[in-house]
């Protein structure tokens, strides 16, 4: 399958059809599906950020919900306590998330890997949740913290449709940036670190820097997703960023396919749409996500993206081979 670079990049342009089609979406939906469509965009970023760390970099870091929560709270705190308009809180949320990513990478650089990293990052996430609950002055505690939709730069952010377009632009920019990164020498180096860290260093590649970069970029986009989540729900609560959130993120990454950008989008869209129907009964959501992950692991470990890869090499993903 000889595919020259030129035709590949030309074919990649068809990806822009996806957001173009999405532009028309609000014309066709009712308020409820609009709300779900907005959540899909948020979860696209959450899943993508997770996929970069556990798929591409291959680090078993479970800090994704921590980044998500940090971003959401950064946005809400800046909105409530500083009186900033939501749009201005978005970069702050990204930076806060990136800082969270930096902290998680520090553990990885300390030689804490695999299960140790999983445990320490899980503890990090739970610690953040404790922090949201117990520093009521700043975070509102269990009552949650509101995000103002009123102050905006002439945008009617109270409308879900307007939110959708704003989210769509942000998501497209960040997805495009991630694709650029992953297709570059940095993206190759990220996978190289996963495959063989020692050999990567022997090529003059600063592996620590690559690990920090991947974690911080992951934290950045998931942090921004957090800000979007804060606006979307209007109020953030500590419980939104617990272990349930983590397994939902896992399911999305896995259903889509680890380390695949297209997979992250697919996984997020598919699993945001479906569970609305199962949420009515207590416990069904957990069974739903749990069973989905187990089945995917057994039957289709490369996720939906592996189906796409059969159609076209543009969707090829680099799964672990060890």
């Amino acid at each position: 399958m000889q595919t020259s670079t030129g035709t590949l990049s030309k074919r990649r342009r068809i990806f822009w059809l996806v957001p173009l089609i999405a532009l028309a979406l609000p014309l066709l939906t009712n308020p409820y599906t609009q709300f779900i469509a907005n959540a899909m965009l948020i979860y696209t970023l959450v899943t993508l950020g997770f996929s970069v760390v556990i798929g591409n970099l291959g680090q078993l870091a479970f800090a994704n919900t921590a980044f998500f929560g940090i971003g959401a709270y950064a946005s809400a705190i800046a909105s409530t306590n500083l009186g900033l308009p939501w749009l201005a809180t978005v970069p702050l949320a990204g930076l806060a998330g990136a800082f969270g990513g930096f902290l998680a990478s520090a553990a990885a650089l300390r030689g804490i890997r695999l299960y140790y990293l999983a445990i320490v990052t899980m503890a990090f996430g739970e610690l953040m949740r404790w922090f949201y609950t117990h520093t009521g002055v700043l975070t509102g505690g269990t009552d949650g913290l509101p995000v103002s939709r009123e102050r905006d730069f002439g945008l009617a952010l109270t409308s879900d449709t307007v939110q959708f377009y704003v989210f769509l632009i942000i998501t497209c920019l960040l997805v495009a940036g991630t694709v650029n990164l992953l297709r570059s020498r940095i993206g190759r180096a990220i996978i190289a670190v996963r495959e063989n860290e020692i050999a990567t260093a022997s090529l003059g590649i600063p592996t620590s820097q690559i690990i920090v970069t991947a974690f911080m970029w992951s934290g950045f986009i998931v942090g921004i997703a957090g800000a979007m989540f804060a606006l979307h729900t209007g109020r953030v609560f500590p419980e939104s960023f617990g272990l349930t959130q983590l397994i939902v993120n896992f399911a999305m990454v896995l259903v889509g396919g680890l380390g695949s950008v297209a997979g992250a989008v697919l996984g997020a869209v598919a699993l945001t749409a479906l569970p609305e129907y199962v949420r009515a009964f207590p416990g069904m959501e957990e069974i739903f996500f749990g069973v989905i992950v187990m089945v995917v692991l057994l039957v289709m470990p490369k996720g939906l993206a592996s189906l796409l890869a059969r159609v076209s090499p543009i969707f090829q993903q680099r799964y672990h081979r060890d």
Partner: protein
Amino acid sequence: MFLQLTLSGVSQGAIYALIALSLTVVYRSTTIVSFGHGDFVMAGAFLTYVLVVAIGIAFLPASLIAIVAMFLLGVAFSRGLIGPIRGGPHVGLALMSISFGFTLRGIARTVWGREVLPMPRVFDIDPIFIGSVVITGDALFIISIVAVLLVVFFTVLHFTDIGKMVQAVYQSERGARLIGIDVERFHNFSWGLGAALGAVAGVLIAPISLLHPDLGASFLIKGFAAMTLGGFGSLAGAVLGGLLLGVAEQYSGAYIDTTLIDITAYLLIIAVLLIRPRGLFGRKVVVKV
């Protein structure tokens, strides 16, 4: 005050020790960390509750049934879900155990609903007073059960063929295979044993705490903290780590701030892994070169 705190710490810590031990059993024999273990604990407690309250069986036989059932569930999990993806990446193995635990939690919630259920009191042992220290019946019960269990466990490990087998597989899976040990069966057994030990912890907490489907998550983290503190893979370390964690929680709650009880475990994990990743008794953590 100090003695009283230490005593409640040990009683609480005995349960953490049991959970850490059950995690270590699985980890040592299969090199997999069971992220769904908290839900095994929950399932053990839940099953006991159902048997006692809904069906009306006495506590002791009910708990035995629950423990055996959890053993079988552990074996089934190992054979059906872990076995097929054994050679795969760690992400998959971690996710498999998480999602299995998550499913158990979901099942519990479907049956249970959103209520928090108290178990009827099981033992009415009168508290013992030694000077100003009060030893409650529950504490006495928990500490003695765990102590007996540990003695049996370590005796089996050190003085029987099963113990030697554990050592062999831990040292080298290939070597163990060569001398004729059925490694797959051994893995299945270890998952079963791990789940059963977790269930014992569940049985012990059932009478003394409010039961709800999410109780596993916090116990999982406590188990991890105990394991980390004691040193990953060390059985004795897991036990000691659990006891220390229980005591540390009581001290930090009493002498610093009660809200700290909840996060002692997290802080301990982060501190230990950053300062001394091998814990008290663990082998040195080496990133493979």
